[in-house]
């Protein structure tokens, strides 16, 4: 039986995952203009169902049923000034994702739409999320600013 694995080709256009962010207005309408997140080192798409367990007298093992899930997308990236701080460092919640930057989207607690293209093959994964988990770091023997970024998903993923 043939085994088909899913490989990426970093550096080859269209052959590696890319992440873009679009901000929402408070009324749920997207603010036109999406931010493409460059220099991603890795992407992890997390999906974890909560499970409700119970016991029955006629069963030796606990029974379980999945309930709601916790979803998030975790990445590590190399910081780039414009993408991190945005084109306007004082941008607020009604400004575009490009203007706010990743740091601004987190600071403003902005609801966003995250789209991963070429995700796990040729799929596209879309979700609404909040940007969290920033931890920009640099050290003497790793003199490049790096940071984890977590896109905490509200609701489910849409996969196409």
């Amino acid at each position, binding site marked *: 039986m043939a085994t088909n694995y899913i490989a990426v080709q*970093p*550096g*080859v*256009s269209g052959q*590696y995952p890319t992440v873009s962010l679009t901000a929402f207005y408070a009324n749920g309408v997207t603010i036109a203009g999406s931010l493409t997140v*460059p*220099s991603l080192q890795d992407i992890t798409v997390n999906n974890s169902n909560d499970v409700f367990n119970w016991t029955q007298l006629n069963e030796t093992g606990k029974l379980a049923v999945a309930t709601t899930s916790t979803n998030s997308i975790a990445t590590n990236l190399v910081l780039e000034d414009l993408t991190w701080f945005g084109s306007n460092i004082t941008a607020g919640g009604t400004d575009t994702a490009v203007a706010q930057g990743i740091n601004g989207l987190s600071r403003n607690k902005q609801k966003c739409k995250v789209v991963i293209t070429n995700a796990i093959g040729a799929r596209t994964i879309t979700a609404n999320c909040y940007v969290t988990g920033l931890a920009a770091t640099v050290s003497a023997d790793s003199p*490049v600013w790096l940071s984890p970024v977590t896109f905490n998903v509200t609701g489910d993923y849409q996969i196409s």
Partner: protein
Amino acid sequence: MRDQVLAYLDGLDLGTFAMSQELPFDNAGTTLYLKNPKRVYVDLDQNTTEVFIGVMGNNSIDMDVVSVIVYFANDAKNLPADYSDTVNAVVGAKSLYAANGFFKRDYLTSTKYENDLMVTIIELRFYKLQ
């Protein structure tokens, strides 16, 4: 970096060892540090580029590694009294700064025997981001 290493070592007192401005090999392939024991020779820079941080796109962050090898030979049976001092002086060159700045420096020392001579090989490595 060869010029900087040479200039640095020229300014030091190497005891019974002397500095040579020549490369370690002549065009006939003669190994000059074997022909002239107790003379310190500095080879040409060897440059390599490595990926320092790989990213999904085509803009990985690369790192240049400059390697400078220093050779000298002495009697294999009777080690010169100032041998250790000379080795310490040469490895001190790893602390040299370049205009662009190195974020990492290291060295590797090794010895080998050629007939009745002991050859000391010190590789100085300097790392900087492109």
